[in-house]
């Protein structure tokens, strides 16, 4: 098993006719993702990469059984798109769009919770269950199927860590990017809890960075003995200055809180192995999984 998505997960693409939506649809189809429909208001009847396009999520969901939606629409319309998908009853929403206003993200998160939808992102690379499906924008060639779960705040850094694992012969069950923003749907801890229940996953790599407190939440949970599998972590931003946003809206050290040092300390204090370099991760995983 994997978490969140597998080869049978049926996906719609919101914003499928856009430049990025169309390219990423092709790359997902190439990977084996079951894309059943696309949505772009006003473009019903078009076909993108052999996928039928509908005006509304409801139209698409009425004609095709749908488990998940991936959203590529521009930031100003992203809240609208996410609410539309949640209200249509889709259980898994992946929001790739970056620079969505935080107030919109707050509303999406709250509405998702009320409707029992799992929201990944915004500003996420999505989900990949290697060899089965990818509902996201990650380059598939860096991943391979296996037993290590990855939960990450950063997209490209998770590619690097997964690539390191793959080259060392260690496959992944599922890799989830929670998104780089200050407010995201699922957190690192939410993903960790899903990995807990997944038999295929035998260890978890948590890729963190400065800002927010999502790594500390993981540390607290592990320290309380609530998580039974080995956890390995890497934290980016050891040389980050205070009070400055580092690309991600969530990557900011405020009033001395959220430094890499404090996160590394909290994680180590919980018995989690923290790698000094991304390339050290596979070796530590091997030791702990032995």
């Amino acid at each position, binding site marked *: 098993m994997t978490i969140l998505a597998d080869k049978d997960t049926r996906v719609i693409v919101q914003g499928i006719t856009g430049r*990025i939506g169309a390219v*990423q649809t092709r*790359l997902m189809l190439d990977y084996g993702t079951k894309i059943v429909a696309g949505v772009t208001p006003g473009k019903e009847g078009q076909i993108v990469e052999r996928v039928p396009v509908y005006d509304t999520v409801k139209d698409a969901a009425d004609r095709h059984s749908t488990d998940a939606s991936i959203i590529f629409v521009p*930031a*100003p319309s992203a809240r609208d798109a996410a609410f539309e998908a949640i209200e249509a009853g889709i259980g898994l929403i992946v929001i790739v769009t*970056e*620079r*969505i*206003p*935080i*107030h*919109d*993200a*707050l*509303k999406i998160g*709250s*509405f998702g*919770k*009320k409707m029992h939808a799992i929201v990944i992102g915004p500003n996420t*690379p999505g989900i990949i269950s290697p060899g089965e499906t990818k509902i996201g*924008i*990650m*380059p598939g*060639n*860096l991943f391979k199927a296996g037993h290590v779960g990855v939960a990450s*705040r*950063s*997209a*490209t*850094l*998770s*590619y*690097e860590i997964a*690539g*390191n694992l793959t080259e060392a012969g260690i496959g992944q069950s599922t890799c989830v990017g929670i998104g*780089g923003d*200050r*407010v995201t749907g699922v*957190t690192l801890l939410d993903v960790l809890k899903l990995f807990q229940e997944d038999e295929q996953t035998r260890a978890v790599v948590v890729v963190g*960075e*400065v800002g*927010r*407190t999502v790594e500390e*939440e993981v540390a607290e949970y592990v320290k309380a003995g609530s998580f039974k599998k080995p956890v390995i972590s890497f934290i*980016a*931003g*050891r*040389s*980050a200055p205070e*009070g400055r*946003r*580092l*690309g*991600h*809206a969530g*990557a900011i050290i405020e009033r001395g809180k959220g430094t890499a040092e404090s996160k590394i300390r909290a994680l180590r204090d919980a018995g989690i192995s923290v790698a*000094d*370099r*991304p*390339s050290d991760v596979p070796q530590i995983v091997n030791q702990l999984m032995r």
Partner: protein
Amino acid sequence: MRLFEFESKRIFRAEGIPVPRGEVVSSSEEAQRAAMSLGMPVVLKAQVPVGGRGKAGAILTSREPKETARLADKILHMKIGEFEVRKILVEKHLQVASEGFLSITIDDSEGKLVVLASSEGGMEIEEIASKSPEKIVSLKVDPLLEFEQYKARQIAKQVGFRGDLMLKVSNILWLLHQLFLKYDATLAEINPLVITKTGEVLAAGAALTIDDDALYRHGDLALDSEERIQDSIEKEAAKLGIAYLRLDGDIGVIGSGAGLAMATVDMVKEYGGNPANFLDTGGRITRQHLWNCLDIVMRNHAVRAVLVNLYGGINPIVEAAHGIVEFFDERKLQLPAVVKLRGNFEEEAWGILERAGVRVVKATQTEEAARLIVALSRKEFS
């Protein structure tokens, strides 16, 4: 974007929150004139978009106009943090009976708004929290629910206000919440909230931070974001939509993604190099965007080597490769440069760079690229 206090107060006033009478000045003559028209005594407050003004001695009270001019001279061009004071807010001095604190912010982990109130004010919230935690009332608000006025009344009452004061404070808190939503704020704070000897309630201190990603919805505010950036290269980068931060080293770094860029900076350090900057291209790479990123990095004359680290996920790295080649051709750059690329269409991108004579790292490991650029830069300097 953190607003200047005078900008915040302009918005507060427009939304119905009482603020002290005041004028913004940028010279000692103007300060003196403002003092005379407001009536003595007055308070002079340095306008910088950071905290810590009080401790820096940039908030001063003046009892007569000549003194106002002298104090203004003292505050103008003072440095607070990295900011030079260019403007002063001159305000009518208030007859303070007591001070409180009201704030609205966002709880990242719960995804809710947080309303904080206290009958103590005039110091940092952390200080109040450690000195008298029992005096802070907090309430989390679901972002999908209205913040009804009764909630504001409950909070004002819990903080200890009664009668007419309770009504005034709760109304201000409710208005603060309304403007928090209206202006896409990430922080709206009144500190201190002043209760005067005549029973007036005013926002004597005001702070407002607007979400950078929502600024497009507030063009009517005509906020000048560059005014808030001190460093000239960072200013240029902001104009181009590039997340750039100048550091004090000599190896320029470009990463596609915040976490990767941070890790790249960390690894350059790990191998004994000294990064000149942090730069995240974001997920919207085009040929021109990458050209711009390199241009920004090279504006820092301390840069003696460049490391570019990109992944092709959402970013078209073939376009990025073209942008890199064009930049190096145009500028005839001789400095050591290493480009590490992985992901979709990687072979095509490697080919473009190799044919142009750019040093390419094809490994996954950022460490390898970092070690190489540090070694190359050392060879160059020796």
